Structure formats: structure tokens, C-alpha cells
């Protein structure tokens, strides 16, 4: 009898908790849906430039083989983690990438005030911005049948892994999607010119010098690959020499940034060291390690530190251009 009573109490409690929670949900779940008329005022005008040429709807094939109908004049674009390209092309998205409250600080000069959208693009979050065009980078974002769901919200163009890993390709592709191929080509030409000028300056001031970019985060070091991300800028665009250690690790690693032990770092014979420090707020204890102090560039005082909010951890035309500025201002001028 006692057991039965206790059981009934358990059920009762469960039901009570349930109803309490139901009530709680009822009060504050929903966020008001932005009405179309209300948001036109704050709506970023993106395509005023192309107003001169009468635009029409176009059909393009995306990186995954979908045929996508691009609206004549997309006004409300979401291109999460591809904002760099939009900024370069002078287009403002309706929402910008965020992960755990982190945003792309280096773009905020242009993107300031644009609301954020979680990096994994939940359907209803996407829908709440009423986009008229979605541009998506890597394949994995739309895997598992998600493409079909996004495509119901707005035309969805996936760049695909091959394109998204090469910012030049991605820039031209996004230019094509936004009917701004000429602008994209201009941006690219301007960048190549800037890189060539910088390379000439570097060869004059610091001939045959090597450099490495190291990222310190949570007491672990990562080194940039010699062909990707900021490594592409340093070695291919600016012509710095690749240190042997960087070559070795890039050959084995798969990521843009590959882990490197402190012991391995001690062998790094780079003349200059670019340090992206994500541990600044927590004391960067790793930099006080005696081994760190034996690294050639550290001994010679050729370390250039940048915060994690700088463009070094990203890539794209704007990020790469900012990296060149950093190199010219901090390393070459010295």
C-alpha cells in the first residue's frame, strides 16, 4: 500500500512539474515575427549599384549540382561565414555569422549593427530574417536532407568544398551569383596588384627571409599550413620562405591550422614569427615557457603579436588584404 501511495505521488509530482513547465514555455517562447513592412526601413540596400543594368532572374548550377534560380535583385542575403566576400563586393547581408557570441571582428567596420545568426543556421532562425537568397559554403552544412529544407525558405546556392577552400574561386563564384562578376574581378585584380607591390617591397627590405604564423589557443600551439589560409598569403602571395618545420607539418596535417608541440616549435628556424594570441585574456602562460624563449625568432625579438580578433585566422579578399597591411606596417617597416 505504501509503495502504491509513493508511486502516485511520483506521478502527481511529474504532472505538476510538467504543467509548470508548460506554463513557463507559454509565457516567453516566441519572438515576434518581423513584419515585412516594419523591417524595410532597416533593410540594407545591397543592389542599388546594379540598378543601371535591368537584371532578370537567372538559373545557375551550384557546387552540388542543384539548379538554383537566383532572384533578379536579391535584397536580403544570408551568406554565413562568407561575409568577407560580401564586404569586398559592397553587399550587406541581413544577418551575420556567429558562434557562441563570437563574431568576425575584423569585418565589423562594415558589418556593425547587422544581427547575428547561429553558425549552424537553424531553419527558423534563417526564416525569421526572410532572406531572398542563401549562399552556403561547405557541403556539410546542407548534408542529411537539409538542402531541401533551406531551399524551401529561399533559393539556396552551395559553393561546395572545392570552391570554398580557395578564396579566389569563391570570390568569383559569389560575384557570379550576385551578378557582380565585374566587381569581383576588379577586387581580385586589385588584390593581386597590392600583393605584387608588397612582395616587391618585402624582397627589397627583407630578401630571402622566412616567416611562420603560430596560433596560441588554450595553451596549445597551431601552425598555419603552407598552402592555405594565411599561409597562402605569406608564402604564395608575399613570397616569404617556408621554414622546414612548417613544410613538414603541413605535409602531414589536414587542416588549415595544424597542432604543433612546443618541442617541435623549438626547431622552428623562421626569421619572423607572427603570433595570433587567443590566450591573451587568460595570461598566455605558454609564452613564459623556457622552450618558447629558445625559438630563434623569439630570441631575436622578431615576434609580431596579433589578437584573435584580427584577420589572421580567417580568409577571403578582405582578410588577406588586411594581413598584407599588417605585414607591411609591422614587419617590413621595422
Amino acid at each position, binding site marked *: 500500500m505504501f509503495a502504491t501511495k509513493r508511486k502516485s505521488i511520483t506521478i502527481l509530482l511529474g504532472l505538476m512539474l510538467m504543467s509548470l513547465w508548460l506554463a513557463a514555455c507559454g509565457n516567453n517562447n*516566441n519572438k515576434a515575427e518581423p513584419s515585412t513592412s516594419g523591417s524595410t526601413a532597416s533593410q540594407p540596400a545591397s543592389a542599388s549599384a546594379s540598378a543601371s543594368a535591368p537584371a532578370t532572374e537567372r538559373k545557375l548550377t551550384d557546387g552540388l549540382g542543384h539548379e538554383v534560380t537566383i532572384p533578379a535583385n536579391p535584397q536580403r542575403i544570408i551568406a554565413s561565414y562568407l561575409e568577407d566576400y560580401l564586404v569586398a563586393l559592397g553587399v550587406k547581408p541581413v544577418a551575420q555569422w556567429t558562434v557562441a557570441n563570437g563574431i568576425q571582428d575584423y569585418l565589423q567596420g562594415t558589418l556593425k549593427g547587422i544581427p547575428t545568426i547561429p553558425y549552424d543556421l537553424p*531553419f527558423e532562425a534563417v526564416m525569421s530574417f526572410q532572406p531572398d537568397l542563401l549562399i552556403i559554403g561547405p557541403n556539410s552544412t546542407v548534408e542529411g536532407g537539409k538542402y531541401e529544407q533551406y531551399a524551401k525558405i529561399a533559393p539556396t546556392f552551395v559553393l561546395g568544398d572545392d570552391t570554398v577552400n580557395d578564396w579566389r574561386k569563391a570570390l568569383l563564384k559569389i560575384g557570379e551569383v550576385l551578378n557582380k562578376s565585374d566587381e569581383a574581378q576588379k577586387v581580385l585584380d586589385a588584390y593581386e596588384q597590392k600583393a605584387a607591390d608588397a612582395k616587391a617591397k618585402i624582397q627589397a627590405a627583407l630578401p630571402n627571409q622566412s616567416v611562420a604564423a603560430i596560433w596560441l589557443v588554450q595553451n596549445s600551439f597551431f601552425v598555419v599550413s603552407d598552402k592555405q589560409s594565411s599561409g597562402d598569403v605569406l608564402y604564395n602571395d608575399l613570397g616569404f620562405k617556408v621554414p622546414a618545420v612548417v613544410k613538414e607539418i603541413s605535409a602531414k596535417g589536414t587542416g588549415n591550422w595544424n597542432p604543433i608541440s612546443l618541442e617541435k616549435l623549438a626547431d622552428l628556424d623562421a626569421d619572423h614569427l607572427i603570433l595570433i594570441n587567443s590566450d591573451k585574456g587568460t595570461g598566455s602562460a605558454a609564452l613564459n615557457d623556457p622552450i618558447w624563449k629558445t625559438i630563434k625568432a623569439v630570441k631575436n625579438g622578431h615576434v609580431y603579436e596579433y589578437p584573435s580578433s584580427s584577420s589572421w585566422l580567417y580568409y577571403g579578399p578582405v582578410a588577406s588584404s588586411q594581413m598584407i597591411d599588417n605585414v607591411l606596417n609591422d614587419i617590413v617597416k621595422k
Partner: protein
Amino acid sequence: MSAYPMSPEALRKRKRTVFVLTALAVAIVLTFIVSMNTGLIRLSPADLLRTLSGGGTERQNLILFDFRLSRIVISVLIGMGLAISGAVLQALSRNALADSGIIGINSGAGLVILLFVAFYPTATAAPAYLLPLLAWIGGGFAALLVFTMSYRRHKGLSPNRLLLNGVAVNAGISAVTIVLSLRINPEQYQFVLTWMAGSIWGSNWSLVAALLPFILVLIPFVFYKARTINVLGLGIELATGLGARVSREQIVLLAAAVGLASSCVAVSGNIGFVGLIAPHLARRLVGQRYQALLPAAALAGALLVLAADTFARWLLQPTEIPTGIVVAVIGAPYFLYLLFRTKK
């Protein structure tokens, strides 16, 4: 059973079972309604009714039918599947702490997904049904491994070995998974991580279609076997004495449990603890008889996952927490509580 006249005691038990099942069903319906209403975009109850009866705008239809309802249906199916799978595994191992996550089925499925993501040339997006299929292969393989290690000729499946080997296989698979995950690039890792955390958010009707056959075939089958499970629960010797073909029944039921767990895990990612908690809750509510325990467990599991998913969508809007994490937050303390109680 009903052919026999009922004792007052049995009658009371039956009444109680009916009451519990009804209460659980009502709670599911209520949560279902709340869940339809939960989301970033506001749908008033009036909008909801209008949309349900076919009069919604295109936008409301999309939100309700494509985004929310598919997810709700998946939650209910997964909850049922994992709960029944857990109930069967607990009966077979005669251990209240067994469930598909603990004996390695979930991590086996996860490993295959990881292998696929790491090595599949990503020129085209994988079709929706491919991940469930792969997870099923992985889960089945892990179960086969555990099973062959626990099977002794003439003695059948040893309950204790089943659990211990399961834990060992689970640890081994997890280790391989970690080693492999160091070799893939960050985007791929992110994808695998989200999948392993147990997220229902990407669900759509094609996933429902992929999962439904398993649920529709295997759950009624397990219900049909309820009396056999009761007998198996008495222990191998006694069950043999009562005339059950123990080894055969064990294998068939184990296969059913693996089928249910892998197909659920395939769709939802690694949602743990449901298979553990739901049968327990059911046992406390309606007692040991599997004829009553199985339906109660299925309903409790459905309620748990549906409530957890609704909560996951609501808590940190607009970001969605993986449902598996919410279930684990509820499940872990309950698990510890069970361990504590068993010790006493």
C-alpha cells in the same frame, strides 16, 4: 490472459496500468501542442489551428509542417524506439543499467559516420537515407562483436558478459573515434561532433520515412514477445525449465533491440540515457510485467525526447542546443541515483 477470471489484485493492477498509460498519453499530447508552438517564429494558437486545418499561409505551412511537425514526429519515434530497445536489453542482460549507449551500439554507429565523413569524396551531398544506413551498419557491427564475445556454446548468452563486453567494446570504439577525429579537418569534425551530440534539428520527412518501417515492424514484434521476455527475465535455467528456447529467443530479441537502437541513433545522432531511464520509469509506474512495462516505457521515452527537444529549441533561442545534451542533463543525475540505490 483475460480468459482467466481476475483476482482483485490483478484487476487493481490492470486499472493502474490503464491509468498510467492514459496519463502518459495525455502528457505527450500536451507536450506535442506546446512543441508545435515553440520556435523562434511566432505562431499564435489561432494561426496554429488555421494552419493545421489547411488554411495557413505558405510560410506558416512551411514552419509547421516541414520544420516543426517532422521534428516532433521524429522525437516521438526515437523516444519509443530507444525506450523499447533499452527495455529489451535490460531484460536480456538482467541488468537494470543496460542500454544501447552503454553496450556500444550508439558509438559503433558514430564511428561509421565519422569514417564516412572523413573519407567520402565530397563532390556531391550525401543522400538523406545514407547516414541512417551507415549508422545501422556500425551499430549492428558493434552489437555483433559484443554478441559473439558473450556467447558460449550450450550456455547461450551470458547476461553479465553481455554488459561487460559491451562496456569494453564501447570504450574501444570511443578510443578509435577520438584518434580518427584528430585526423579530419575542422569542418568535418564540427559535423561529426554535432551529430554525436544528438541533434534532431535537421530532421525532415525523408528521415521520418527512413525510420518509420523499423519502428512499425520491430515495436509490435517486441510487444508480441512480451511474455517471452517475462520468462527470460527469470534467468536462463528457470526459463529453460519453463520450456523457452532460450538461445533462439535471446538472439531474436537482441537483433530487434539493435535494429531499433541503430535506426534511431542513425536519424538522431547519439541520444543517450533514454533507453535507460524510460524502462525504469515504466517499471516504477506499472511494475515488472512486460505486457504493461513495454507500452509504458515506449510512452515515457516518447515524452522524454519530445519534452527534451522542445526544451532544447526554446532555452537559448535562436541557438538550438543538441537534444541529446538536454536528455543527458536530465539523465545523468537519474543514472547516478540508480547506481546509488543499487549499492544500498
